[in-house]
């Protein structure tokens, strides 16, 4: 990759990041990252979620401040303290969430973004300039259309138009294709090409290989906060990129082969479909079985229906087609209450928002596990002594030291919160535990406590459904791993015989990018 060793001072380099380091509490998001953007190129920033791509571009755009490292724009060192500074340097960023005002027209939204909007301006001139720009870059936008009428793809192009009319020459797109349907993706890539032809430089973030290969000139791959390498797109292959994204070797398996064969089916989804909510994908004919004494993993890039899958299992999301069975009974229309009572435990990614009440003490939060059992006289009296006993026992059973009882949940660390959730959920009688990214954002020890608890659950003959992005985790714990992409199960593997390249290919939508 010698040809990519451009110096930061080269005329062709418009943006150069050198040694960018950014630490968030508990995570090293960017670890001495070097990155160069050349004039007139489309540069894909490729990597898994949490690889540090978003952090990097947000540092460039002045949202975050790097702990170390320097930024050069057109060869000159710059200090970008805010997005305003970035815009003054000709940078523009299209975010994942749009910043448009739905009730206003395209023209009005664009006008609001202009740095020097005169106190009185001519709507006609503005409309003309929008129309001209729209034609020039192939955006196909009507300045008079109210934004709420536009499709997501069109709204994205309004964001782009705002930047273009404000004079941006270096454009950054944060996962632009995440919210788009396939034909909109193609349209966006055509816009990229027309912008490149007119001398704009583009950075776009993606975790989909095919997209990077189909439209970028160069591809920089990040993994765990570091740049693994930068390749010319025409020199890159899917294999080489996958290896860069996920590492070379299959994670070693630490799971015991299991003392008994998987038992009867605890959970079954048969041809389950849901309705899409917002921009999230709907489940599309999902078939799934979890047996007693078995850990079934769901692999996928987040936002491909994992959360919906978890919600369907917990009865929070309505099934519009297909059936769900729990312990052999038709549970398709059971309420969350019924499912929880029949024995589903749930360990989510962010306990503070999904599992615990922040203002409650640890003990009160624990009591929520089964308020009926912990109260007397029609619920008028709580039996805190009993709660306390179960609380301590629960921690001891999982080999953890009990948390102090009067501590408010909102003040606990992420790891301790997850321990509390884990102990509460696994202390009541259950048959199935659903983990929704249960180890995301946790330190290694806490993450291992969660994994250990899941393995113990399996030993005890419970069913485990583990939704995760961490392939290492999935392949070290699971008996079977299913791959989900855009709400569909696109593959199934046993860890012993899995081909990581193939798993990565399916996760990133190879073969189904434009299909379906």
């Amino acid at each position, binding site marked *: 990759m010698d040809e990519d060793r451009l110096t930061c001072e080269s005329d062709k380099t418009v943006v150069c990041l050198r040694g960018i380091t950014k630490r968030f509490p508990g995570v090293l998001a960017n670890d001495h990252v070097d990155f160069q953007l050349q004039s007139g190129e489309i540069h894909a920033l490729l990597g898994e979620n949490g690889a540090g791509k978003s952090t990097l571009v947000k540092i460039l755009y002045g949202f975050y401040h790097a702990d170390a490292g320097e930024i050069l724009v057109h060869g000159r060192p710059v200090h970008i303290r805010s997005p305003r500074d970035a815009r003054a340097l000709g940078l523009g960023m299209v975010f994942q969430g749009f910043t448009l005002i739905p009730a206003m027209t395209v023209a009005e939204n664009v006008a609001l973004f202009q740095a020097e909007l005169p106190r009185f301006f001519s709507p006609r001139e503005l409309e003309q300039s929008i129309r001209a720009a729209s034609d020039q870059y192939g955006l196909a936008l009507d300045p008079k259309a109210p934004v709420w009428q536009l499709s997501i793809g069109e709204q994205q192009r309004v964001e782009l138009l705002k930047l273009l009319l404000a004079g941006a020459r270096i454009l950054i797109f944060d996962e632009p294709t995440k919210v788009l349907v396939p034909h909109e993706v193609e349209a966006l890539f055509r816009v990229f090409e027309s912008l490149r032809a007119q001398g704009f430089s583009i950075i776009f973030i993606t975790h989909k290989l095919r997209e990077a290969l189909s439209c970028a000139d160069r591809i920089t791959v990040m993994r765990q906060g570091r740049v693994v390498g930068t390749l010319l797109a025409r020199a890159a292959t899917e294999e080489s990129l996958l290896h860069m994204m996920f590492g070379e070797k299959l994670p070693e398996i630490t799971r015991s082969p299991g003392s008994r064969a998987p038992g009867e089916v605890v959970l079954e989804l048969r041809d389950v479909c849901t309705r899409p909510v917002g921009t999230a994908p709907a489940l599309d004919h999902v078939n799934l079985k979890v047996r007693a004494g078995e850990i079934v993993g769901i692999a996928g890039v987040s936002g491909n229906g994992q959360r919906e899958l978890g919600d369907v299992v*917990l009865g*929070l999301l309505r099934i519009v087609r297909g059936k769900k069975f729990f312990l052999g009974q038709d549970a398709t229309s059971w*309420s*969350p*209450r*019924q*499912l*929880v*009572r029949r024995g589903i435990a*749930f360990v*989510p990614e962010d306990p503070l*928002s*999904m*599992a*615990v*009440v*922040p*203002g*409650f*003490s640890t003990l*009160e939060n624990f*009591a*929520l*596990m089964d*308020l*009926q059992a*912990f*109260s007397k006289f029609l*619920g*008028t*009296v*709580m039996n805190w002594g009993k709660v306390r006993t179960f609380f301590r026992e629960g921690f001891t059973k999982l080999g953890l030291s009990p948390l*102090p009882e*009067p*501590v*408010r949940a909102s*003040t606990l660390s992420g790891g301790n919160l997850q321990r509390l959730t884990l102990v509460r959920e696994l202390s009541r009688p259950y048959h199935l535990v659903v983990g929704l990214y249960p180890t995301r954002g946790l330190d290694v020890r806490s993450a291992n406590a969660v994994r250990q608890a899941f393995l113990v659950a399996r030993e005890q003959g419970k069913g485990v459904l583990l939704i995760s992005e961490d392939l290492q985790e999935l392949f070290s714990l699971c008996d079977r791993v299913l791959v989900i992409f855009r709400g569909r199960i696109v593959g199934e593997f046993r860890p012993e015989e899995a081909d990581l390249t193939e798993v990565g290919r399916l996760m990133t939508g190879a073969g189904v990018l434009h299909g379906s």
Partner: protein
Amino acid sequence: MVLKSTSNRWVWILFRLSLTVVLILGVFGLFLWALGKNPLKAFQDTLRLNLLNPRGLSEVVVRMSPLLLTALGVAVPFRAGLINVGAEGQFLMGALLGTWAAFNIAGLPPALHLVLVLLAGMVGGGLWGAVPGALRALGWVNETITTLLLNYLAPLIVGYFVFGPWRAPELAMYPQTPELPVVPYFPVLPGTRLHLGFFLGLFFLGLYAYMTGRSRWGLELRAVGGNPEAARRLGMPVERWLLAAMVLGGALAGLAGVAEVVAIHGRLKMAVSPGYGFMGFLVNWLAFANPLGILIMSFLLAIIASSGFTLQITQRLPYAAVNVLMALILFVVLAKPFRQGVRR
């Protein structure tokens, strides 16, 4: 961080409350001074006539009775994460349905009749709370807006009855009903206007403190308010709780309304509430749903309501001057969540 020990927390709450009071009285003092009055003298008179005088004190407590109940009517939904601005409307609908029960139920022993009248008041307020509760539980409309709007509707309905079908024939010039038949049986402390409503208020305050603090129901209610997402995932019937909290809140405000009609006015008329529902909202937001805070703050707001009359007599100020005081309190109340947000 470990929670502050219980005694410390009480000290902190009391400190906060007294600071609020001092601040408000200070600004109101400036206002009186700007009007050319002597604020110290005004405060002195208010103190002397309302607190240091048994008759004055009993009048303060009379005003405190509906406040306790309307404040609880705001506090119960508050615990479920709901903002009930509609205690005023629920108060009036309680008064209305209670009046209906007083006139239309006959042939029962007076004590039983009285109980039914009070229950009817609770039903009236509860139904008026159920509408926003149901709309919110269905996820259709935010309860703050509906409760607020229903406040405008309730007086119109009461107005229809007191100007129309229920109007007392013997006093045709006043839009009001005849005296309610249960009035003579309503327990009142002899020599004062202090009535059963006050003791009902205290009873429900105690019940509220116990139920929210100690019972399973309270824990569930607060869990729904504290993190609805988690509550739903724990299998709690979140929607049912939202509805129940609004119905309970409305019922308490409705009880305040019917008690006020029976004990103070004896008949239903437009002016049964000088804004007790709104003042109850203030009480709850000053107290942040804390039971002791509700007790103290309803007492303080009752003093303010009474002092309106005192100022009228001693300082020749219009009664509306206390509205300035109320507005000041409102500012403090509105500033409060923001301050809390900053502290975290």
